[in-house]
């Protein structure tokens, strides 16, 4: 790991930037905000054709078999355009979970369809009250022969409204340790007794949904991997989700700094560009410090997924904490530098700001991740 890109990676990054700049313009992003699905099938097909859906899916399942670091380059670029749609849910959440927990048959079935752009998928984890660990999984199931009847509700499920498959974490055993007795159900949203509601949230680029189960019936064959053994795969997925999110947030922060710097160079007040005033200049300098530092940790964290698995969990918490804080602050600082125009709906900064806020509140907040780090002190890790 020396932070430099191979020429293949350079190509991947450059072509991604070009494609995204051409297709995910501000107008298009805003159009997708108004679209309840958050994406258009034609665009999804185009992305699939680029191979991005299967970037980290092994070649045997129709993917490109590249590393998470490679995927990170794409996520970074997506962050720069605050890309809307179910890419993250499908390619980071569902794919990583299926890769980790799925049987050979399940992998063959689902991963190939994801790689080819034929399946949009997501993962349903959190419930009312939002506890970040395994203790938050409370949705209950009742076993009836070979079937399970699910009762309860998942909240803040990303992109459930457009998904063909929702992988749902369910407590199939009680009276065990929090991390045990959790099963992953492969839910077709059309199943009777499953209801999906789109939530009105700030960031309409990543739709969040409530998914309710009113005694919906699923067979035991519709469980990803083994019954009762789902949590450790979720942990693996959450680590990667936090890292993926960090890359996306890095891209957002980088772009936001560009917006601030550009405006500071051309906006004239009191006869000079506002960037010549230290109040603005130093705000930009602090942003650069944090953006560049975010680059170090986010890229390193992405590399650890394949390059140093012993460090990956720690790196994920550090990346989420540092980059999340950077993005929210950089977007707020840029809004302030823009002044009135930054407060208007017309300017794009609010798209970034809202994405920053929404991202920081996903997959464990800062207090949670800091406590994860602190809990290692006693273990001297």
């Amino acid at each position: 790991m020396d932070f430099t890109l191979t020429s293949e990676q350079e190509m991947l990054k450059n072509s991604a930037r070009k494609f995204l700049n051409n297709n995910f313009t501000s107008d298009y992003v805003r159009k997708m905000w108004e679209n309840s699905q958050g994406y258009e099938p034609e665009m999804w097909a185009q992305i699939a054709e680029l191979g991005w859906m299967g970037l980290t899916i092994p070649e045997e399942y129709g993917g490109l078999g590249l590393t998470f670091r490679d995927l990170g380059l794409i996520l970074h670029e997506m962050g720069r355009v605050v890309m809307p749609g179910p890419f993250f849910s499908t390619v980071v959440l569902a794919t990583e979970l299926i890769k980790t927990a799925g049987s050979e048959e399940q992998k063959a079935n689902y991963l190939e369809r994801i790689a080819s752009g034929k399946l949009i998928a997501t993962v349903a984890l959190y419930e009312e009250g939002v506890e970040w660990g395994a203790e938050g999984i409370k949705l209950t199931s009742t076993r009836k022969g070979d079937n399970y009847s699910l009762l309860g509700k998942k909240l803040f499920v990303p992109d459930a409204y457009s998904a063909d498959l929702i992988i749902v974490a369910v407590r199939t055993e009680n009276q065990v340790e929090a991390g045990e007795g959790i099963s992953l159900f492969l839910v077709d949203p059309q199943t009777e007794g499953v209801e999906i509601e789109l939530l009105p949230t700030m960031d309409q680029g990543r739709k969040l949904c409530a998914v309710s189960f009113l005694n919906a019936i699923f067979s035991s064959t519709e469980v990803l991997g083994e019954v009762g053994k789902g949590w450790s795969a979720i942990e693996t997925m959450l680590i990667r989700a936090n890292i993926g999110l960090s890359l996306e947030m890095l891209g957002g922060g980088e772009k936001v700094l560009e917006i601030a710097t550009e405006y500071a160079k051309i906006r004239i007040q009191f006869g000079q560009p506002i960037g010549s005033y230290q109040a603005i200049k130093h705000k930009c300098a602090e942003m650069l410090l944090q953006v560049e530092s975010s680059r170090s940790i986010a890229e390193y964290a992405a590399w650890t997924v394949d390059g140093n698995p012993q460090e990956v969990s720690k790196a994920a918490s550090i990346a989420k904490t540092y980059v999340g804080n950077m993005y929210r602050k950089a977007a707020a600082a840029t809004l302030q530098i823009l002044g009135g125009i930054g407060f208007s709906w017309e300017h794009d900064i609010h798209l970034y700001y809202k994405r920053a806020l929404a991202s920081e509140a996903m997959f464990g907040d800062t207090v949670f991740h800091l406590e994860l780090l602190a809990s290692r002190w006693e273990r001297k890790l």
Partner: protein
Amino acid sequence: MNLTMNPDDQAYRAKFLNWLSENIPAEGTSAEAKISGDWCAQAEIFRKFQRKLFDAGYAGIHWSKEYGGQSGTLMQHIIVTEELSTNYPWKMFDGLSVGLVAPTLLSRGTEEQKKEFIPKILSGEHIWCQGFSEPNAGSDLANLSTSAVRIGERYVVNGQKVWTSIGHLADFCILVVRTDPTVGKHKGLSYLLVDMKSPGVTVRPIKQITGEAEYNEIFFDDVEVPFDRLVGKENEGWLIAITTLMFERIMNEISIVPKLQQTLDRLIDLTSNTTRYGQAMIKDPVYRQKIALLQVELEVMRLNQYRNLATLLKGEMPGPEGSIGKIFWSELNQRMQETAMEIMGPYSQLLKGSKYAEDNGKWAFDFLRARGNTIEGGTTEIQKNIIGERVLGLPKDTVRRN
């Protein structure tokens, strides 16, 4: 925390609260209404209620009877303003007219202007807006270019203003225009009172990051303004505008402190009622410390405000130190809102209309709205320059000589 108030003032407050409980209109004070975007309807409720206040003698309390006031005390005015600020969602409709326009006219207007406009402000007949900022004159307000040319007994105004709060509802506008383009920036400006129904006035709403449109652009296209609507002398409008801005900073705080208190109370309730990992979050020392620090800051701000009011009560004009309060409340409100977001986690993202949202999405709305606090009414950066240069006497930013 309360400074002791004399018994007369305490009795006055009790009497007003009693009156208020019987007269405040239910339709405007529901939780729903508070975050409603239907400002036209709200404005009508305001006008009716303001008329009631006026008739009951609770408007313009400290102003002379000849202008429709009650010749009461400033402290009585403060009491009424404080009590109206938290349970009264229409402050935006008269915050400007009562807090800025009327004091400016009282100190700088002609006798005719005072008699014409102040009673109608008090009775709710006239809602006012403020036409100061322009696209190229934000922080650099003296750079404005909207022009007024005198032709006979009228000015003919052309140009564009921006960030005009409630411009789409207002009856009149305080407008700063350039009447002499040949002299330096601060010179050559004049201060006009403009009827928003004049031909040639076009208002276009600006949608803001909350999704609502509180602000507007106003376009002036050969708008005629009678000469007697000039405040002060021609080309001496800058000083009057500065007066208005200083009133803005001080008077705003009267209603802001009770609002922040309400936000803090809601924050403590929210944290008490949110359970995580089997424990109310209010028991978590991390959040206790954060919220207690917000409380410290609020109490300090309240005392700052009492000190300002003590100065006003002595009859002194507000000075540049009003910028302290502007910085303080805008940043404190942002910190309070941020803390609420942290506590709510993903729930912070929910907007009004979601049954899962806390307080029907008011937190999310207020959080986004709070980003504007450090921009509107003079950015934090400008306020710090004012303090550095006009209070501490530090040298001005060097200006590039053109």
